[in-house]
C-alpha cells in the first residue's frame, strides 16, 4: 500500500487500506512524544498555511505543532485579522497563498464544500480541517487511532456517537471511518438533531441513550452548541443534559471496559460531567496527543515521504 493522494478532503473517499496506512504511519510519530528532542528534519523547507475561517484552538495548534515537529515552516491566517475581513473571496485568498509558495494549506471553514473548492483552485496540497457540517477527517482519524490504541482493533466494535449529529462534521467523518474499518455505529440524539436518512451512511439511529449504552464498546460524545437551543432544536440545555448527558449514573450502566472520547472542547455539566471526563475510561487528553501524531502522519504522506527516521 502506497499513498497517492495530493489532498485530504474527507474520509468518504478513502479506502480502508488508506485509513490503515495513516494510522500505521502515526504510530512512530506518536513515539516522538517520548523523545527529549521532538523535532524531525523530514519536511524541512516546506511551508504550511493554516487558513482558519472559524475560531479553533485545538485543531489549529495541533496542526501547527505537527508541522513544527516535522520542520515545516508554519504560517497562521485567521480571517478576522486578514484581508478576508476586507471582503477578499476564498478563491483570491487561495491564489495569494499559492503565489507565496505554500506546500500545504490547512483549511477550516464554516461552509461545506470549501475544502474541495480550494483544492480545485490551487496546486497546493489541501487538508480539510473541518468544512461546515461535511467532514473533519483528521479528527476522525485521531478518534480511530485512539480507539485502535485502546481496543487493539476497530473491527467488530460497537460505537455510539451521541449529540448534535445534524450539524456535526465529526460525526460524519467518524461514521465513514468507523464503518470502513468494520465497526458498527449507532448515532444517538433527539430527533431534531438527527439528519434525514443518516441510515444511508451505514449508521443505526436511536433516540434513547440509556437503551444503547450497555451494549457499546466506545462512546463518542459530541459538543452541544448553545445556539442550537436558541434556534429551537431542543427546549433547554437542562432537558438535553437529562436525556443525553454522560454522567456517573449512565457510565455505570456501560461495560467496564467502555472507552469514552470527546472531540473537545467539552461543555462540562452539559453533555459530559467533569467526573466522567476525568474517569480512567475517558481518553480525552490523550486524543489531543494522538491528534498531533495523526496530523504529522498526514503531512508526511501527502508530501510523498518514505521513512520516518
Amino acid at each position, binding site marked *: 500500500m502506497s499513498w497517492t493522494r495530493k489532498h485530504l478532503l474527507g474520509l*468518504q473517499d478513502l479506502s480502508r487500506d488508506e485509513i490503515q496506512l495513516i494510522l500505521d504511519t502515526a504510530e512512530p510519530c506518536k513515539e516522538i512524544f517520548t523523545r527529549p528532542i521532538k523535532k524531525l528534519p523530514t519536511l524541512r523547507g516546506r511551508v504550511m498555511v493554516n487558513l482558519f475561517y472559524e475560531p479553533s484552538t485545538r485543531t489549529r495548534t495541533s496542526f501547527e505543532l505537527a508541522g513544527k515537529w516535522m520542520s515545516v515552516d508554519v504560517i497562521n491566517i485567521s480571517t478576522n485579522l486578514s484581508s478576508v475581513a476586507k471582503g477578499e*473571496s*476564498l*478563491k483570491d485568498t487561495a491564489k495569494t497563498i499559492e503565489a507565496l509558495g505554500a506546500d500545504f494549506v490547512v483549511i477550516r*471553514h*464554516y*461552509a*461545506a*464544500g*470549501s475544502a*474541495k*473548492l480550494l483544492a480545485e483552485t490551487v496546486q497546493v496540497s489541501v487538508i480539510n480541517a473541518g*468544512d*461546515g*457540517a*461535511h*467532514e473533519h477527517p483528521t479528527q476522525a482519524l485521531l478518534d480511530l487511532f485512539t480507539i485502535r490504541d485502546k481496543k487493539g482493533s476497530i473491527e467488530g466494535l460497537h460505537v455510539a456517537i451521541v449529540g448534535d449529529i445534524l450539524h456535526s*462534521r465529526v460525526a*460524519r467523518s467518524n461514521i465513514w471511518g468507523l464503518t470502513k474499518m468494520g465497526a458498527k455505529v449507532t448515532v444517538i440524539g433527539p430527533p431534531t438533531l438527527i*439528519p*434525514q*436518512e*443518516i441510515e*444511508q*451512511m451505514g449508521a443505526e439511529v436511536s433516540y434513547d441513550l440509556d437503551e444503547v449504552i450497555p451494549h457499546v464498546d466506545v462512546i463518542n460524545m459530541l459538543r452541544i452548541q448553545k445556539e442550537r437551543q436558541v434556534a429551537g432544536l431542543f427546549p433547554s440545555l437542562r432537558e438535553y443534559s437529562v436525556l443525553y448527558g454522560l454522567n456517573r449514573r449512565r457510565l455505570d450502566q456501560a461495560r467496564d471496559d467502555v472507552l469514552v472520547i470527546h472531540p473537545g472542547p467539552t461543555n462540562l455539566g452539559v453533555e459530559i460531567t467533569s467526573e466522567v471526563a476525568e474517569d480512567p475510561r475517558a481518553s480525552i487528553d490523550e486524543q489531543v496527543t494522538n491528534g498531533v501524531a495523526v496530523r504529522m502522519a498526514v503531512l508526511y504522506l501527502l508530501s510523498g515521504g518514505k521513512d520516518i527516521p
Partner: protein
Amino acid sequence: MSLLIKGGRVIDPAGGIDAPADILIEGGQIIGVGTDLPAAKEELPAQGLVVVPGFIDLHVHLREPGYEYKETIASGTRAAARGGFTSVVCMPNTNPPVDNKAVVEFILAEGARNGAVRVYPIGAITKGRRGEELTEMADLAAAGVVAFSDDGNTIMNAVVMRRALEYGKMLDLPLSVHCEDVNLAGQGLMNEGRTSTLLGLPGQTRAAENVIIARDVELARLTGGRVHFAHVSTKEGVELVRRAKKLGLRVSAEATPHHLTLTDELVATYDPNTKVSPPLRTREDVEALRAGLLDGTIDCVATDHAPHSRDDKEVEYSHAAWGMVGLETAWPVIYTHLVLTGCLSLIQAIDLFTRKPAELFNLPGGRIAAGQPADLVLFDPKKNQRVTEELLVGKSKNSPFIGQELQGWPVYTIVGGQARWVDEIGR
C-alpha cells in the same frame, strides 16, 4: 418583404397540424400555410428541419434595470432567440422592482428598442416585493403587465395573498407564485434528504414548498382568483395541483427543464451551478413532474432563466447566488431527455412550449395560422451538440447542463418575420 419557408415539417399543436408544408410570411404576419403557395422575395429552405410556433417562456429574469452586469434585456432576449423563444415573460425582481408604471414602461420600451424577441413584464404584487401593501395593480395592468408576482419572495402573510387574489379578479390576470415558506426553508441550501446529509449542507425540506401550494390552493378556492404555480418541483406539489384542478379551481402550473431532468445527487459536486430555488429534488419527484406533464396537471415548461455572473457563483456553495440560466438549452434538454426517450410525443412537447403558455397568460402567438404573427422557430431534430460556455449567448454562463450532449437545437428563430437567430451558415 416576403419570405417563404420551404420544405420543412410543420407542427402546430394548436391547429393539429403535423405535415410537410411551406409557410408564407409578409409584413410580419403569416399569410399562408400549405404546399402550393406563391413565390416570395426570399426563400428559406427548411428540408430536414421542423417548423413550429416560436416558443414562449412564462418565467425569465432579464435583470434590467439594476443588475446589468448579470444580464440585460438585449442579452437575455438574444439568449432567448438562440433557444428558439420568440416571447419571454420577465420577473419583477429588478432594482427598482417592477412595482410602478414607470418601470413597466421602461422594460417595454427597452424590449422594443433592443430586444431580440418580444418581452412581456410581470408586475409585483406588493410594493417593493415586501409582502405588505398591494401595488397599484390596475395601473400596472394598464401599463402592460401580463401577470403579477413577487417572484422569490413568497407572500408569507396569507391575508395579503388573499387580498391580492381578490383584487386581481377585476383585472383577470394570473398571480404567478413562488412557493417557499421562509421559516420552514430556513437556511437550507439544497433539498433535505440523503444527499444533504452526506454533504453536510443545510437541507431545505420539501414541505416548505408544499405548504404554500396547499395554502394558495385554498385561497384560490376562497377567492376564485387565478393562481399560476411557478416551477413546481415536488411530487406532493404535483398532487395538490392535480386535486385543485379536479375541483375546478382556476390554477395552473409550470415546471422547469432542470427540475424535469436533474436530481439533488448532482449537488454532490458542490458545483454552485446546481444551487437553485426551489432546489433540485429526487428521482421520484422528477418522475411525478413528468407524469404531471402527461396528464395536464403541469400546463407548460418555463425556464426560470436566472443569470448570475462568475463572481456571484465561483464562491463557497453557501455564498453562491441562487439560480441557473436556461433559455438556450430548454428545448434541447426537453427534446433529448423527454421526447427522444419516449416520455412525451413531439407534438406534446411542442404544445408545452407554445399554445399552452400563450393561453395561460393570454399572449399573442403560440400557433401557426394565417393572420398570426410570424413568430416561428426551425429546429434540427438531428443536430447534436455538447453544451459549452461559448454556446450560451447570454451574459452569464451558470448552467448545470454545460458538458452535456444535447440534440434538437434550434437553428433559425423568426420574430415578426425577422430572423433573430441563425445558427451557422444560413442554417
